[in-house]
């Protein structure tokens, strides 16, 4: 098809659009906008659910890199080597070693227990942390929803995860949660066959299970209670400096840890579970998006087809006065292109002007994550290309079908 034909086709399409019924045009563009948003937002939310959970896991728990104990060992060996390597590296902003022990926790233990009552208790992980380091890596202090975070090294005080508290988990069954724990209450934890009472200083709330079901105490207090060496943490969360690639820091830490620990990026440490969900959700998003594309293609097809059917006579006249099929096809192509580009443009404005900012400011509250809207520039670009392609194909098909018909039959309305 030569350039002149294309030019005339575009001009003809433009004239027709310019004088088309404004409401019809508005409706078609509106449908295209909805389709585009359906394509981007639905899969964006689905993936965002998982990504939101993966993001908070990294932000609130693992840091950019998580140094873990090796499988089948109790602790990291030579933790000090790793910590001093982290301290020396400019690529690492902060590191927080955590020391963990399992314990049974009780609340309300001072109350007189009647014969048919049991003391509320729950299984929890006691985490010994250096409060300032931990805060620098995960911002634990910002997760405090009641009471306060540690000021400095404080013995006998604890910050407790809200996952252990009945007031925050109305649906939890007895035996999983503690009752009546507020800042200032005491909880009793089992230690080495005996017990010790801790004063609750604050309550932290997180959607990351590992953060939410721990009881945090000071590291030095912890090592004293359990007789653990400072050289044997269970995990070290690392926050890297801005702009640094996690892979290079991983290598550096691996060199320091040697066989004494397992060094993993945040993503690696999440294991396959989240990745599997993410894959499933993006497949689901793809299916829903595919249906959206089909629906919009059919819509455009029907709109253009009916438009062309009612205009058969004029298509015939165009042929009668010497207008080539390719020009007529191009004029409809221009219209289909306009509908999709206009619809997508409005969609893009809504997406980046209001929908994305809205979700960023108000993440969807899911039990396991704060659902963000996961949209990437490339993802959006692909969807734009696919949608434009599909509508153009759907728009041009009925015309190719009609324009082939006999000129006279078109004009006289035969067939």
């Amino acid at each position, binding site marked *: 098809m030569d350039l*002149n034909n294309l*030019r*005339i086709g575009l*001009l*003809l399409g433009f*004239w*027709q659009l*310019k*004088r*088309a019924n404004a409401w019809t045009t508005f409706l078609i563009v509106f449908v295209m906008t909805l389709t585009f948003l359906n394509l981007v937002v639905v899969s964006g939310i689905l993936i965002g659910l998982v990504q939101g959970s993966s993001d908070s896991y990294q932000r609130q728990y693992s840091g950019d890199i998580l140094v873990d104990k090796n499988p089948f060992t109790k602790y990291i060996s030579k933790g000090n080597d790793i910590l001093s390597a982290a301290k020396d590296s400019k690529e690492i902003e902060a590191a927080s070693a955590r020391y963990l022990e399992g314990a049974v926790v009780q609340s309300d233990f001072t109350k007189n227990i009647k014969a048919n009552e049991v003391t509320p208790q729950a299984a929890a992980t006691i985490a010994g942390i250096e409060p300032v380091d931990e805060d620098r890596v995960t911002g634990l202090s910002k997760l405090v929803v009641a009471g306060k975070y540690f000021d400095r090294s404080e013995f006998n005080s604890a910050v407790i995860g809200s996952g252990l508290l009945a007031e925050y988990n109305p649906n939890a069954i007895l035996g999983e949660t503690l009752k009546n724990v507020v800042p200032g209450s005491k909880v009793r934890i089992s230690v080495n066959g005996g017990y010790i009472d801790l004063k609750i200083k604050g309550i932290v709330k997180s959607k990351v299970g590992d953060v939410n079901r721990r009881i945090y105490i000071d590291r030095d207090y912890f090592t004293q209670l359990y007789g653990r060496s400072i050289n044997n943490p269970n995990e070290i969360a690392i926050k890297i400096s801005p702009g640094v690639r996690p892979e290079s820091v991983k290598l550096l830490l691996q060199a320091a840890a040697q066989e004494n620990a397992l060094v993993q990026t945040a993503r690696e440490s999440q294991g396959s579970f989240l990745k599997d969900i993410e894959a499933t959700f993006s497949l689901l998003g793809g299916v829903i998006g595919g249906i959206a594309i089909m629906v919009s293609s059919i819509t455009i097809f029907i709109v253009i087809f009916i438009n062309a059917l009612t205009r058969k006579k*004029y298509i015939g*006249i*165009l*042929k*009668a*006065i*010497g*207008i*080539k*099929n390719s*020009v007529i096809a191009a004029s409809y192509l221009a219209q289909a292109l306009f509908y999709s580009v206009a619809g997508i443009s409005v969609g893009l404005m809504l997406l980046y002007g209001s929908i994305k900012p809205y979700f960023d400011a108000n993440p969807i509250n899911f039990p396991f994550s704060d659902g963000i809207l996961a949209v990437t520039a490339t993802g959006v670009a692909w969807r734009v290309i696919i949608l434009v392609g599909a509508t153009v194909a759907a728009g041009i098909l009925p015309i190719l079908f009609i324009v*082939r018909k*006999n*000129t*006279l039959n078109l*004009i006289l309305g035969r067939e």
Partner: protein
Amino acid sequence: MIEAKNITKIVKSGGADLKILNDVNLTVGDGEFTAIIGRSGAGKSTLLYVLSLLDANFEGEVFVAGNKISQLPDQERVEYRLQNLGFIFQEYALLPELTATENVALPFLMRGLGKKQAFQNAKEALAQVGLEKKTENLPATLSGGEQQRVAIARAIAGKPKILFADEPTANLDSVRACEIMAIFLRLNRGGQTIILITHEDELAQMTHRIVEMNDGKIISDKQIENPRVNLCAKHKIS
């Protein structure tokens, strides 16, 4: 010169074959103004569609200036019409979304002219049919006579070898009809070959030649010694 040889067209109607053109032979010389008359259903329109390449399903041959143009493939017929033939339908046949100028400019654009030149030529063609004040009107805002004049401007704009008109005045009152006839007469004086179908004897009398059809056949073919061009003289458009 256009020459139709042994044109026969058979259509199926209610299961039976119907010969709506029956071995028609017709030659129209350059510069001739020919009227085709006949009863409704005689086959006038059918013949005009064959001559103007709008119809391709017939037996026989059509020559223009010695070139056989029947049996060309669809897109070549479209191109041939663009370059050589003009056609005026009874029902104006304008594109409703295009202004008068745009309607007339379209064939110019197709011939490769730039938009500016095409629009200028279109406006000149519209001026020729007395519509210089209505160039920006959409068809719906024009009267029937004005719409038909736009259609004429579009048909003649490319200086076609032959101009076909199928009852172009059927929907118009006699004053408008005369305006249209005056345009045809002026074009013909300038050498334009015209083949016109009409019901009205008065209009036919203004041409050089009257071909009468009946039942798919030409039943008479008369030269007019003194075309009565003055019948419409008072409506002449300069």
